[in-house]
């Protein structure tokens, strides 16, 4: 079996092979597979695995299954239509409202300041102010995410039979994830690729954590730690925070979500 990383010299990595077999790869990869016996063999092996999985079907359902589904469903539908339950405000909308409010405040401040000191404000300045505020909000978000992830990364190795309780972190993760999606989307719209890429990586880890069991087994906790270490995610997050310091650190106004 080939190594997982790109250190395999001129041969394709496992990721490239998967990409090739799903038809998502660049044409050069196909040319390489055709020319390289070793990669061709590995592709065959992965292909056989995927074919084996392709044959994996659910147990056969009895005739009339569809009618049985409908009988049960029909009994529930009217109740479901009348059902009403209170939901707490969606974290995405909370974050969106806060972000929008911050940008409005920033633009207003910029505009008010420019009326006193300078000629009429131009949109580029307002946009810069919006960008700075976004950067403050993202920095704050990343700091809070680091506070959740750091204890997990720095936890002592557990015995395989012991479990690490992450239920407390999971309570926070839902909101962080909602914010993360919003900020990532904004960064993509602003064509801020670096921030979007970092938020994408953070999002992936948060989704994993959100959908993890509340108690991680030793191997699961180790897997998470290893992935965080391999991706240097915390270092990247620290790098972002240090290059985008909170305004409070240099005496300016701090705006928190």
């Amino acid at each position: 079996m080939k190594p997982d990383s790109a250190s395999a010299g001129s041969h394709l990595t496992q990721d490239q092979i998967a990409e090739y077999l799903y038809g998502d790869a660049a044409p050069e990869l196909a040319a390489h597979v055709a020319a390289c016996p070793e990669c061709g063999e590995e592709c065959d092996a992965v292909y056989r695995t995927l074919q084996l999985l392709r044959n994996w079907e659910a147990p056969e359902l009895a005739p009339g299954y569809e009618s049985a589904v409908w009988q049960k469903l029909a009994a529930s539908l009217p109740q479901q239509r009348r059902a009403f339950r209170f939901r707490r405000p969606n974290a995405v909308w909370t974050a969106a409202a806060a972000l929008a409010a911050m940008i409005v405040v920033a633009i207003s401040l910029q505009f008010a300041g420019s009326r006193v000191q300078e000629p009429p404000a131009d949109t580029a300045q307002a946009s810069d102010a919006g960008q700075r505020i976004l950067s403050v909000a993202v920095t704050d978000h990343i700091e809070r995410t680091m506070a959740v992830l750091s204890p997990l990364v720095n936890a002592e190795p557990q015995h395989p039979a012991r479990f690490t309780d992450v239920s407390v972190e999971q309570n926070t993760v839902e909101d962080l994830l909602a914010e993360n999606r919003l900020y990532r989307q904004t960064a993509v719209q602003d064509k801020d690729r670096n921030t979007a890429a970092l938020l994408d990586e953070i999002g992936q880890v948060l989704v994993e954590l959100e959908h993890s069991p509340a108690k991680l087994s030793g191997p699961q906790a180790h897997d998470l730690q290893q992935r965080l270490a391999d991706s240097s995610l915390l270092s990247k997050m620290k790098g972002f925070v240090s290059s985008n310091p909170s305004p409070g650190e240099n005496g300016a106004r701090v705006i928190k979500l």
Partner: protein
Amino acid sequence: MEESDPALVDRVLNGDRDAFQMLAERHSRSVFQLGYRMTGNQEDAEDIVQETFLRAFRHLKRYESRSSFSTWLYRIAANYSLDLMRSRRRFVDCERRDDGAGWLADVASSDPSAHQLAYSGQIRDNIEKAMNELTVVERTAFVLRHYQNFSIEQIGAALGVGENAAKHSIFRAVRKLRRALEPLVTAV
């Protein structure tokens, strides 16, 4: 001629419940199949079928006919499966083995005769165990790509992550499955 899904959706939105029955009956087997592959459990898959159609009925106004109705349904089913797997903590089970050797050792040490390893209950069992080794997100991404032919973009949207993250979840799943099923694939 069979009425199209978007036409049936329109009828449901105009208050025709019979049209929803036709939709449910048309798609229930494929949603069951998806639910089973996501959870590896028949009861959970049946639960997923019920909940998926209930949610679809409640949110039918949100369906936009530019995507296929089945893709929209599968997305609902995948999201519910994620919630379900998280709440049931099913994925802890595979980590609780304390026999030291694990199922892979059993497969590796068994007689690799091709006849004995014909597609059978044992192979199904091994595939299900290999699938259980995946994280919930990896499993969801893989099932949606491999069995439902979702695009990377659609998987990212279903999981709430970017395309890169979705792609890497699939890659990790393929790597793990390749590793876990290697003895089986070599022997067949």
